[in-house]
């Protein structure tokens, strides 16, 4: 099924339950995000991109694989926007369209990196596997 970007944006909002209009563009989510430097599109931009229905860029963004699901942005956002839920929704959209596992246990050792927090591993399976 082919969806327009507008429809995809609506779907992302529906899956995540996020109302992007609540964002006041303060940037506190990005200021809190531990994966900020790894991301090409930053948490606060995610909110704006979805609001503006620029979904293609998000689907191709590496940020969706870099987000740690630490929920710091959800915790700190003064407007209760929950950017991480949007990122999760975009990720789900990609996974569903690919229709398979993005991460298998066999791949883990080679991807492991000293700097990455432990927490990442646990959530990674939740995020990248069907």
């Amino acid at each position, binding site marked *: 099924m082919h969806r327009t970007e507008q429809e995809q944006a609506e779907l992302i909002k529906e899956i995540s339950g996020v109302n992007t209009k609540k964002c006041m*563009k*303060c940037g506190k989510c990005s*200021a809190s*995000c531990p994966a900020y430097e790894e991301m090409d599109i*930053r948490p606060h931009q995610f909110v704006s991109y979805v609001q503006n229905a620029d979904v293609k860029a998000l689907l191709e963004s590496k940020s969706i694989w870099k987000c740690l699901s630490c929920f710091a942005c959800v915790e700190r956002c*003064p407007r*209760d926007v929950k950017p991480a839920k949007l990122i999760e929704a975009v990720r789900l959209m990609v996974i569903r369209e690919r229709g398979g596992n993005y991460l298998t246990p066999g791949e883990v050792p080679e991807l492991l990196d000293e700097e990455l927090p432990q927490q990442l591993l646990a959530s990674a399976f939740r995020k990248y596997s069907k």
Partner: protein
Amino acid sequence: MQRIGVFVCHCGTNIAATVDVARVVEAAAKEPGVVHAEDYQYMCSEAGQLKIREAIKEKNLTGIVVCSCSPRMHENTFRQAAERAGINPYMVEIANIREHCSWIHKDIEEATEKAVILARAAIAKVTLNAPLQAGTSRVVKRALVIGGGIAGIQTALDIADAGYEVDIVEKTPSIGGRMSQLDKTFPTLDCSACILTPKMVEAAAHDKITIYTYSEVEKVSGFVGDFQVDIRKKARSVDMSKCTGCGVCQEKCPSKKTPNEFNRGLNNRSAIYTPFAQAIPNVPVIDRESCIKFKTGKCGVCAKVCQAGAIDYEQKDEIVTQNYGAIVVATGFDTIKLDKFDEYSYSTSPDVITSLELERIMNAAGPTKGHLERMSDHKAPKSMVFIQCVGSRCADKRGKSYCSKICCMYTAKHAMLIRDKYPDVEVTVFYIDVRTPGKNFDEFYRRAVEEYGVNYIKGQVGKVAEKGDKLLVQGVDLIDNKRILMETDMVVLATAIEPNPDVRKIATMLTASIDTNNFLTESHAKLRPVESPTAGIFLSGVCQGPKDIPETVAQAGAAAVKVVGLLAKDHLVTNPCVAKSDELLCNGCSSCEKVCPYGAISYEEREVNDHGIRETRRVANVNSALCQGCGACTVACPSGAMDLQGFSNRQILAEVDAICK
């Protein structure tokens, strides 16, 4: 039978574009009792009112129905018109066919039908109207101001200058409020104390002003024009008439470990203390919870060293009871607690401070004698970070939904003053928006950037962490789309403000309404901004909403004018639409008293004549001056004895019948 006249207003096109007024006239004319019906473009105009007056005379009308806008707008206009033509003003009814009809409907058919129904209900009601006489009540020529900050002081001065007596009740040991804690004030950077203390002195010296400090309002009864108030003067333990204000007691007091409230807990004070040097009155109080004598019975040093013999450990709280015509609330604000904002390390690092704490640090009489230093090691900072909007503009439960309004400006002030006095200190401000509406305000902020080199970053701080003796600030620059990780020496939080928490207690005592943020509600956001919806209660300063000093002073003056307008009246006309109990039906059950929000109902033993049987019964009695005509009691009364004049049960039912016809 009444002779009723119906007048249907077009309100230009406001009504006539959606309601077919001719059909309303036609339908009204057929109702029983209606002997005259007409429409006109603007009933409220002189010409429109003349039509009503002429019809009253020509047709001998006894009741009037005006189909027009809300009674809140023009009920009074039409009542006066009727009165001028010789009929009782309470024989006028309004059918609201604008707010309740034309403005909310699009379809002409529907709107016209509804307008006819509303007219019919008003006609049914006026048929049962009876003439009512408004009574009068006295006006006590004295005002009470609760809160002695700049708002309360200014209101009191303005009322007193108009020739009326004013009492100020201030909770703390001195008047002055937050302004006495500030160092310099935007936008002109004059020293706060230099402009505040003359006002404090003037208030203290004014022969019409009485100041009760270390006092609180304990009980309020009565009503507009005649409130009765109990003021609790807490025991100072120092005789005001003997104390010379020399300060020896404070020097010698051995109990010196109580956090100094005036300096926001940045240093300690003695058990016997005056909050600051220019305090008014300059008479200390003993904080009995910290005093060794009150805790253990031993000490008494202050009494020994006091040359004037002013120390009085036996002093008791005193209740002063006084009557007032008007009450002004000026209870101001505090900064919110930051315990829910762990990310800024406020509770763990002494070098993360609020802006109000910075005011004390910069003040020559403050804990560091005006020298800018870190509270942890007393070293001068080389770099400082300011974070705006901390706890303001929050949709979550951690903070406040509103913009605190003053922090953009005071942050620019702080940044500028620091760069001016310590040009080597790097100053960075993180902001979401810089909000500087106000005369010369934006220019002030731009000066901070362009002349003083303050580094403003559009973005927020996500985390402040302690790192050695430094603070690590993690933020984001939204313009450069870049992460910022910087070490700094001090972090200053522009903390949200909130109404003084005990305003809830005050509001309950005064039956004045407050909003969800505890700000006192004004009677009309635009047209009655300094009046509470409760008659005789006025609002001054930040207790009504965030304000800076210029706005506070302007509003304080406005509140004073309203008070003076009230006190200048010889008497007040009371609303005759009040509850009245039928003594023959009342069984004295007390149901009505329990629901009355204004305490207007009491019971008395009265001799009644019930169909020839004389007996003494306990019956309800309504104080018509206190009753606001809300009607709660009429619903609560199980025996149908309680009725509201002008809105009797019969009248309401007649309206319902007419609507359902």
